[in-house]
């Protein structure tokens, strides 16, 4: 690839090239053009700051990272840094000292309750922000001001203004921003995306996406405060909204309903019409008292695909129940016990791949599969669903 990029025309061609090389498949370009996606995608690419994208370094550099937030996602990411050839963990930052220490000890890195040591450490290249959504903007901008690249959990922010401000702060500080829309790296969703893009399913008509489980437990129960999490549409269904954008381009309109109770629980259903004509149904539930599961069904004129994570369990551990206390009725240890299922992956692990993809972007090797602008688009759909639910109106998007 030439490094003498001086005009917009050249940039455009190069970005096409970078984008499509990601897939090693030129026929996708044809399909996307046909589906009216390419123009939108190219526009998105042009928006992002690629000024450092071409300074490919000799050899592969190992980046140094600090995780900010040692909750569920922080732990999930930390495990992947242990396995990554491209990024290693140096700090775990958490306001809760014992939680920071617990994860840091497990990873043999430094624990801190203050981001300062990581932000001022010149060895640290990037901050991995795994904080509750309402803290994203502050943390991302602080990291950017310290010249650190930022990998931030989804959703990018709670408002489009906040999200755009974060993107602009990262751009003006010359750092890369990645948003962890990990669904695009789940092999089952990736395969569905590629099958759709290949055209083997024909023209897509109706698609259904579902994400259901119990109410999430978070730090200070922040999910239960709607002002802090924005509930199922913005925190949960945003995965599916992003996937819809990835597969079918922009959304035309949304009609949605949601309900919540004090328990707490929240349940939402959205009917989404894509500009390409695809009709989508998206279910987001924190009302299902059973293990978290997700499924989809995609029907085109030439065939359909369906997936249900509850049926894709290659491994389940069944453990005997604890024996009853002494003196209790006979039949100690009777009953169903506990079943815990896993779907382990090695090189296709989605969390490892999203991290590696982000650091390849940081190194300037390629554009990541998810650009910050994609995260804003998904947020817009989630907010439109909330708005539709609140007003009872059909809400146009974009």
């Amino acid at each position, binding site marked *: 690839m030439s490094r003498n990029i001086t005009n917009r025309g050249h940039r455009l061609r190069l970005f096409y090239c970078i984008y499509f090389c990601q897939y090693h498949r030129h026929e996708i370009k044809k399909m996307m053009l046909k589906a009216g996606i390419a123009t939108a995608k190219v526009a998105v690419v042009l928006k992002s700051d690629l000024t450092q994208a071409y300074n490919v370094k000799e050899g592969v550099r190992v980046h140094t990272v600090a995780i900010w937030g040692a909750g569920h996602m922080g732990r999930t990411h930390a495990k992947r840094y242990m396995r990554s050839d491209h990024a290693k963990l140096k700090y775990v930052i958490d306001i809760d000292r014992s939680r920071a220490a617990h994860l840091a000890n497990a990873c043999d890195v430094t624990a801190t309750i203050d981001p300062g040591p990581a932000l001022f450490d010149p060895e640290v290249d990037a901050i991995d922000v795994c904080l509750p959504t309402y803290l994203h903007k502050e943390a991302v901008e602080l990291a950017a001001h310290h010249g650190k690249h930022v990998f931030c959990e989804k959703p990018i922010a709670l408002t489009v203004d906040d999200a755009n401000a974060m993107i602009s702060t990262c751009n003006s500080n010359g750092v890369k921003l990645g948003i962890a829309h990990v669904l695009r790296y789940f092999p089952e969703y990736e395969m569905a995306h590629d099958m759709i893009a290949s055209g083997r399913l024909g*023209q897509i008509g*109706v698609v259904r996406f579902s994400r259901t489980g119990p109410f999430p437990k978070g730090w200070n129960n922040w999910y239960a405060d709607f002002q802090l999490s924005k509930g199922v549409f913005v925190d949960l269904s945003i995965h599916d909204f992003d996937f819809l954008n990835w597969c079918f381009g922009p959304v035309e309109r949304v009609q949605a309903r949601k*309900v919540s109770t004090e328990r707490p629980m929240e349940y939402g259903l959205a009917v989404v019409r894509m500009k390409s004509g695809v*009709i989508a149904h998206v279910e987001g539930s924190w009302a299902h008292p059973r293990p978290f599961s997700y499924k989809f069904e995609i029907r085109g004129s030439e065939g359909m695909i369906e997936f249900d994570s509850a049926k894709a369990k290659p491994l389940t551990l069944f453990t005997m129940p604890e024996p009853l206390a002494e003196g209790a009725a006979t039949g100690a240890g009777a009953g169903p016990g506990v079943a815990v299922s896993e779907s382990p992956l090695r090189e296709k692990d989605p969390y490892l791949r999203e991290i590696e993809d982000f650091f390849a972007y940081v190194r300037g090797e390629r554009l990541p599969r998810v650009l910050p602008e994609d995260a804003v688009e998904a947020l817009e759909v989630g907010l439109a669903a909330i708005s539709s639910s609140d007003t009872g109106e*059909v809400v146009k998007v974009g």
Partner: protein
Amino acid sequence: MTAEHQGNELRIGVISFAHMHAHSYARAVCALPDAKLVGVADEDENRGRAAAEQYGTRYFSDVDQLLGSGVDAVIVCSENARHKEHVVMAARSDVHVLCEKPIAVTVSDGVEMIEACRVAGVSLATAFPVRHVPAIMRAKQMVDEGKVGEVLAVKATNHGRMPGGWFIKRELSGGGAVIDHTVHVADLLRWILKDEFKSVYAEIDTRFHDFDIDDCGTLAFEMEKGIFATLDPSWSRPRNYPTWGDVAMEIIGTDGVISVDAFSQHLVEIGDSQRPVRYRGWGDSSDLALVADFVSAVREGSRPAADGVDGLRALEVALAAYESASCGDVAVLNRVDC
């Protein structure tokens, strides 16, 4: 009123085998000890004669002849747009009717049918067999018993294969996937929730086939008491799908969720050569229970599980979905008095 049947058996005729469900209903009549299949009327002579022979009964080329032959009741399985003509003829001959769904293709036709049967004092039942699926009945019972607390929302699907034939001729069917597959779930929601529909929002399109009738869509409902629900009524099952389709619901309540899949009691059959994988149902026959309910309602002069008004209410929901899709906004149900 009770039927003026001769002997102990209710004498039942079938008007038209245009709808394939006629076969299942005819088998049900033959299987019931207190009913007898006494004739088949079909303007398609080949089809009618073949059916009459198959079920060991008489063929009538003319509906009036069948109605005048001493039948107590008929099952109407003609094309949707012809239900009115056949039901009104039956009512005028004082013959009870079980009518295939959707009850009609317009609200005014539905009202006329209900009125004709009311005036004649005959029973009009709408064929909503899913009410008779044991898993669905149990789900309703769980809702009634408050097992999931207060119901807040329902997510439903009624997928199917594209049936072809007259189903895709608008003048005979009244519409495509949406009229075909909305009425079952609309009826279940009214029945289970004991509530009426307030509004419908629908995204409807033709995206799988090269014809001008709807083959897919997704509907969102609001009930009068505030419960919301969605339904996918698409003809979205490819020909090689292991089964024709589904009727499935998740009922979300304040204290839990009921997940019900009406036709999941099946074996999976995997053939060699060209035979695709198929589901083979082993559960109770809902069509048999539907016909048995109709027979007992006629004999005892009681109300069938779903009557003409139930059929009309479900039709109104499907028609409101088309109205929503054409105006691009939520359509408020305007229930006709009847």
